[in-house]
Structure formats: C-alpha cells, structure tokens
C-alpha cells in the first residue's frame, strides 16, 4: 500500500529578529485511513507541522526544506489553483478555537455551502443540502434551524461540531486537527472525540490529531508520534507507546499525567524547560533534562533505534531497561 502522506527530512526555520528552528529533520509516514496523534508540549513544533502540510506558513519569513508528498503529489511546489484545490479539498483542518476560525458575519450554513460550491462546483441550493446533511452527521440537534444560526448563537461544543462539519464537507482524504478539544469541557470533549472516531471510520480518511494530552491521544489514535524540540523522538502504535515507552521524555510525560500516581507522593517531574531552539540542535535536545543522559548524548544527535516495525526511538539508550529513579 502506498502511503497517503510522506514527510521526508522536513526543516522549518522562522527568520526575523530572532531565528527559531521550529522543525528539525522530521520524517513521518501516514497510511490511508490511519489516525496518528502528534503529542508534545507547547513549542515542540506540532502545530507548525500541521501548518506546513497546508502550506499556511508565511513564505517570506519561513525557510522550508525537505519533501512532502501527499498521494503522489509534491506539496512543496503547489501554487495557485492547485494549492487552493488541495487546501480544503484533499486536506482540511479543524482548529482549536472554532470561535476564531468561523466567520462571524455568515451563518454556519453559508460557510459550509461556500466551501462545497467552491470545491465541487455545484449550485448553492445543492451545497446547502450537503451542509444540512453534514450538520446531521455531526449530530447537531434541530439541524435545519442551526443551519441559519451565526457562530455566536452556538455553544462551544456546537461550534466545534460545525467546524468538523465544515472540514469534512468536501470528503477530504486527510483531516488535520489542531487540539480541537482543548478548549472544551470534559463531558463535551469526550463527545467530540467519539464523534471524530466514528466519522473517521465512516469516511475512511487519514487523521493527524495534534494534542498535548496523552489521555486524548489514547482515545483518538492508533499511532502516536511524540515530538520534542521540533523532532519526533518516539513513534509507534498507541498500545506500544503507552505500555512500553522507550524514550525518557515519553516516560516523563506519562508519569506527569498523574493517572495512577499515589496521592501526595512526590512526582517524577522532568526538571527544567524545553530549549529555545534559537540554534539548531546538534546533540540530543532532551539531554539537559534527562536523568539517563550519557556524555555521548551531549555531543551528537542520538541514533534512531527501531525496536519493531514502524516503531522508532531517537535515544542512545532505547534498548536498555531504564528505571525512573530521579536523584
């Protein structure tokens, strides 16, 4: 099977008063119909990765190198009409804040219909039918009435459902989701996650789901890629990442979830803070915070170990059984 999306040696650098090496030598493969969670903390480059995939980064201030291939098409060279057809047609995105992503002066029906008319070239009336069908599919109650609502008339959970309807209206083959449930309450978050899981199965699309919450990643994804300092430090099936994390950073993140920590016990907190990325990392970027770092970790980038098929760990000690025992 050919991959749906292939990213090879992607580098993203933002230029300006200060340079930021946001993505450093990132490679990633997504098969059709696969759901991958990009897991990482703020500044790890997960949102930048999504924006690069849609070519949304400001060209004048960004240095891009590497290859991105979507279903055989080179994304890096798209422009004009073909870029517009790709965005929203083949690949679409759900943003974190639907209040900002939706246009406040159009009804939700008009916004969904506009996208469908633009990409499918059908009449307004037919596009409205599609919009109505999409609102039903994302389980919005009294969808006929909601079609004529403006975004401000909807609750946060409803708006996110509309955002998902808008993103899926043209049946994209790849859906990018940038923390779509972070701003929602817990009881609404789980509803949206289950809805996305269901729609993914129904439409058979690939999904890249960016999140900082391991629990959310477990609920939504089959595979997880853990990002740190603009690199993927560990990748594998969700089961392997949760049951057998190999990278010390992944282990730290799992411990910090407090899922079954003893009450009041001292937390194995990862000390320090992520690097600023003003220079390109030339050694393991996690080494300064790592309890298991060896001298070699501070002098060169770690080798990438592959403990299994489609499993990788960028750590010198990936094959050693490391016990977390902080000093």
């Amino acid at each position: 099977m050919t991959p749906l999306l292939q990213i090879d040696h992607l580098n993203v650098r933002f230029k300006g008063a200060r340079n930021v090496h946001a993505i450093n030598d990132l490679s990633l493969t997504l098969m059709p119909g696969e759901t991958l969670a990009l897991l990482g903390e703020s500044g790890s480059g997960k949102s930048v990765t999504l924006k690069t995939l849609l070519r949304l980064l400001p060209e004048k201030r960004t240095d891009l190198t590497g290859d991105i291939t979507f279903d055989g098409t080179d994304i890096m060279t798209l422009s004009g009409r073909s870029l517009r057809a790709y965005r929203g047609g083949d690949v679409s995105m759900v943003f974190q804040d639907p209040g900002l992503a939706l246009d406040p002066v159009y009804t939700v029906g008009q916004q969904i219909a506009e996208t469908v008319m633009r990409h499918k070239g059908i009449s307004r009336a037919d596009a409205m039918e599609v919009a109505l069908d999409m609102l039903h599919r994302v389980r919005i109650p009294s969808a006929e009435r909601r079609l004529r609502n403006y975004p401000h008339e909807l609750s946060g959970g409803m708006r996110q459902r509309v955002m998902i309807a808008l993103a899926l209206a043209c049946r994209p083959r790849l859906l990018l989701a940038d923390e779509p449930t972070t701003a929602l309450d817990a009881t609404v978050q789980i509803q949206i996650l289950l809805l996305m899981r269901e729609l993914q199965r129904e439409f058979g699309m690939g999904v890249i789901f960016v999140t900082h919450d391991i629990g959310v990643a477990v609920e939504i994804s089959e595979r997880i890629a853990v990002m740190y300092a603009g690199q993927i430090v560990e990748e594998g099936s969700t089961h392997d990442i949760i049951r057998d994390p190999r990278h010390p950073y992944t282990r730290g993140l799992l411990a910090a979830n407090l899922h079954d920590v003893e009450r009041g016990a001292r937390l194995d907190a990862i000390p320090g803070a992520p690097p600023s990325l003003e220079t390109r990392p030339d050694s393991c970027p996690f080494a300064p915070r790592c309890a298991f770092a060896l001298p070699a970790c501070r002098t060169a980038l770690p080798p990438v170990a592959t403990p299994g098929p489609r499993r990788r760990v960028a750590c010198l000690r990936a094959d050693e059984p490391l016990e977390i025992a902080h000093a």
Partner: protein
Amino acid sequence: MSATDQPLLSVRDLKKHFPIKGGILGRTQAMVQAVDGVSFDVRAGETLGIVGESGCGKSTTAKLLIGLVDRDEGDIELGGKSLGRDISLRALRRDIQMVFQDSYASLNPRMTILDSIAFGARVQGLDDPVGRARRLMARVGLDPDRFAGRYPHELSGGQRQRINIARALVMSPKVVVLDEAVSALDKSVEAQVLNLLSDLRAEFGLTYIFISHDLNVVRYISDRILVMYLGEVVELAPVDMIWAEQAHPYTRSLFSAMPSMDPDNRTQKPPLTGDPPNPIDPPPGCRFHTRCAFAADVCKARHPVLGPMVQGSPHWVACHLHDPASGHPRAGQGVPA
C-alpha cells in the same frame, strides 16, 4: 494532616447573581445565577479541591472568597471571625491570597518581578518587604540575584507561575486559593509546580482551595473534593470516598468523561450528551434533571438539599436518589450501576 474540628474557613449560603442588561434603557433582562447558596468548611491544613465545568461557578466562588466580587448574600468566616462584621476585607486579604490561571495577565507588565512580589507586603505595612520577596523568590526556585530585576515577559509560563505563588505567600497567608493555577502549564512543568505547592503547604502550614477541571490533578493534591454544577454544590466528600463511589449522577458522568488511558479499552459511549446548560434561568428543581438519566417527577419539582449520605458520613450529596423520603421511585437505593 493536622486538622482540628473548628474549621479555619467557613462559607455559608454564598450567593452571587449577575444581572444581564439589555434593551435601549439598559434594564436588567435576566440574572446569571453564578453562585447560588454555596456552603462549605475548610479545616486548617486541609486542601479542598473544587471541580466542575465552565459556568458552574467555581471561579466566582474563588473571587467571592477574597472579595474580588461582592457577594449578594452569605457569610464568610475566617477563624471564627465574620467578614464585614468582625474583620475588614483588607484584613481578610492578608490571610487569604489567590493565584490565577493566566500567569501573564495577573502580573503587572511594567513592574519588575521583585516589585510585584513585594508590593502587597509594602501596602499592608509589613516590615522588610524586599527581604521577604527575595527569600520567597529563592524558595520557589528563582535565584533573586538573576531574576529580581526582570519583567514578566522575560520569563516562561512556569517561572511566572512560581512568581505568582511567591507573591501570594509574601503576606504569610493562612489560605491560598489556586484557581486553575497549573492548568495553563505544560505537563512536565505542571508536575514541578505541583511538587512545589506540596512542599510549601508542609513548610508554611498552608490551607489550599484548589480549583481545577483536571480530576487527576485534583485527586493528587486534595484531601476533599467539592463538585459544583450550575452554581450549586452537588457533592462533597473525602477524595478516597468519592473516587470509590460517585454518589451524584453528575459526578459519575464527570468521572466517566475522563480519557481512559487504556488503548485496549477505550471509552465507547459519552456519559452525557449536549453542553452544560446556561446558568441564566437554570432549570427548576434539581438543576441536573435535564441531563440526568435517572430523573423522576420529584427531580423537576423539588430542589434536593446537600446532606450526608448516611447519618454522620463525611460524604455529602444533593440528590433525591439518596434520600429515602424524597418520593423518587428509586429513593434510598443510590445511583444505579
């Protein structure tokens, strides 16, 4: 944990309704019942966790406690002294301090870190405000020689939240209200700040009111948990008891909405449908009856009272299912599995 029988902080029947004005005359159109009859006690040295979804009134409760919002009704007593009658707001704020969610917005961008921390002590006329501030900076893990002259924008989110904690402690308060104080931090930094909060609690004998939407964090740090829904307390219990048994149907839904953390056994069905209703004109009777799977006629008609599940139990709940005399068809049987 040392806890005496006499509560340190006692809140009775706290109410705050915000008017919504509209129309050309600016008349009051409706009332948001943000906090409606909230009562609880906090013992010295205890940490009380408050959980609930947006609009449930947890932040308004916090603001009422330190007088950032004026209460409409209710009593706040600290160490047996009633606010307004026995002690002034100014005196109360020496003993109750607060840390907010947004570490950046809660610091003055034009004041250095040191000035921000020392400001409260200076205003309250405590001696050696600068010395106090420097000692606290060192205590929260920021070297005063390096950081004292810096401004908030020069620090990371975790560092700023450490500064906010130091500022809250400069008055040597008895109670610290932490309103989503670690929610905006990255997980690895959150763990560091939680460790710091635990250390400070032991070292200074602090009492925390810890507000969060993250049940795992609340469980980790709290002794008791208070669950709010639409401005009211629906359940109040020691952590272990509520973890073992969620007595209110809403609490149970909230707990089952937590991601499973088990890739082989993911959540299959959402515990609730729809969004939390608006606190403007909340439903009559039990406010949860519109979303409750066990609602009966009595739930629409009569408002359940918060009380112990059985006589003398520290596990309190406001639900007709647990009151044998409520008239609910399943009264006294508890929440069905």
